[in-house]
């Protein structure tokens, strides 16, 4: 008997598109999933090779409260004893509390791993882990980008559509439109080399320098949320769960602690360099080359090395 709790992934679907972390949640649940939202059949296709057993519910009303109630009913009808894992994408985060309430279960939000007897939750902006003991079925949200996806070749996929009706009510919050990522976002998302800057860089001006160094290395510039909050870079430059998900081959991190919300948007770079004064922070642990130094000074030195000295 497997000691890890039996899991089902509940994944909200928008127009047939799986959210960030959707496939990872399905992997975490060993291929068992409930897809709920609009145009589920298309989403089922994109889960092929990861999902083994899929339930779907087409929902007419996509508000989180209604989705939560419908998903709870779907679980009661399909796998009522299974614990639930929801991707901690924006739509997943919206849904999970309502689902937990409708099922009458505890919510463990921001999990990075679900183990036999505990759920490990990212806390303090991703710099710490809180292990929480598990007693009975629960609902957890799983941080996208932290586990990867198990692709299993030649699996058969069992698909069971469920039909659950929900009362339609008027709403005070209405979705007007979904805007696609804009050009500058795409630029970063597809960049093969990224130079990133975080709170270890001390001023607005450093990011102009960072952009220059990035350009001379043929790389794009990315930042952490701390930097966008300070207004030193636009949100399109932010890497992570709530920013852009990137997948470069090379990542150079200046003064970045490596909080899970940041690194989960990082893909799987083949090479990581980290410059940080704290040798023990997660970004340094992840790096192939970890340099303990003042990132500001290293940046200055690097700018000096890479920009050709103009003849005087």
């Amino acid at each position, binding site marked *: 008997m497997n000691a890890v709790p039996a899991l089902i992934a509940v994944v909200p679907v928008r127009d047939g598109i799986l959210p960030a972390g959707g496939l990872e949640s399905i992997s975490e649940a060993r291929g068992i999933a409930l897809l709920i939202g609009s145009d589920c059949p298309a989403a089922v296709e994109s889960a092929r090779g990861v999902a083994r057993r899929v339930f779907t519910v087409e929902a007419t009303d996509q508000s*989180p409260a209604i989705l939560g109630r419908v998903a709870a009913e779907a679980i009661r009808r399909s796998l009522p004893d299974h614990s639930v894992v929801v991707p901690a994408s924006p739509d997943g985060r919206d849904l999970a509390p309502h689902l937990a309430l409708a099922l009458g279960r505890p919510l463990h939000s921001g999990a990075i791993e679900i183990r036999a007897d505990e759920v490990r939750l990212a806390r303090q902006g991703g*710099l710490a882990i809180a292990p929480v003991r598990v007693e009975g079925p629960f609902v957890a949200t799983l941080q996208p980008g*932290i586990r990867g996806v198990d692709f299993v070749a030649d699996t058969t996929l069992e698909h069971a559509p469920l039909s659950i009706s929900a009362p339609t009510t008027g709403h005070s919050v209405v979705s007007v439109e979904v805007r696609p990522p804009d050009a500058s976002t795409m630029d970063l998302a597809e960049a093969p080399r990224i130079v990133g800057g975080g709170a270890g860089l001390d001023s607005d001006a450093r990011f102009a320098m960072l952009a220059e160094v990035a350009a001379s290395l043929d790389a794009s510039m990315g930042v952490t949320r701390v930097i966008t909050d300070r207004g030193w870079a636009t949100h399109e430059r932010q890497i992570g769960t709530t920013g852009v998900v990137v997948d470069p081959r090379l990542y150079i991190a200046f003064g970045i602690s490596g909080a899970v919300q940041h690194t989960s948007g990082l893909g799987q770079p083949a090479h990581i360099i980290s410059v940080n004064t704290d040798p023990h922070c997660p970004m340094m642990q992840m790096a192939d080359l970890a340099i303990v130094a003042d990132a500001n000074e290293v940046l200055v030195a690097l700018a000096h090395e890479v920009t050709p000295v103009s003849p005087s």
Partner: protein
Amino acid sequence: MIAVCLKWVQPHGAADDRFAGISAADQSALELALRTAEARGDEVLAVTVGPVGAERALRDALACGATRAVRIATEPGVSSLRTATALAAEVDAADVVWCGDYSADRGSGSVPAFLAARLGIDQALGLIDIEINGNGSHIRAVRRLDGGRREVLSVTGRAVLSVEGSTARLRRAPLRSVITADAASITVRPLESPDISAADLVPYRPRARVLPAPASANALDRVRALTDTGAAPSRTETVVLEPAAAARRILDALRDWGYLT
């Protein structure tokens, strides 16, 4: 009435309140609550679930222009659901409830959704851009979706809204209000059956990730692909260097790995 939920965070524990405060997100929420109330000619209720130190957040809110403040007394560590339930009882008459996106310590971002569920009203969470119309009856909000997509929402009735820290800059409180807020009265109510669970924290370590299966049909090639150190280096080299040496070391590594010639 407009309500705002403020979470008091004490990063150095109760004994040292010097660095305690509310998050940038909660400051934005307070500012937006004040703006909505100004547009509507309405009152602002500031609520916190927390220890006595949290009253400073409420006094700051009063100094900035909140009309009323309530503290639901408890120690830190109450669950999101319990917190939201307590908040709901306090703000159930509010038309708009403003929250921060994430609290700085627990950071589950689940209180606002639980609050909307308890109040039985709609939610708009993780907002990054807010426009309030002239009389405060309509709010246009932009929300972050994944992959750089954005969702534009229209809010026309009762709702719980949560905002990121960069959405609005909290105004400076007038001096006289700061001084009088020191003596302002704050309603304190007990929290029944607090379910405090102070989980021990351990340092964050990245979880081992699943690598995509190698594509080759040949077993030997697959093994090679998985074990080839050139493709998947796994050992961290940590060096302490002076800035100039560090810069050179970075360029050397980039050359070794074939990024520079």
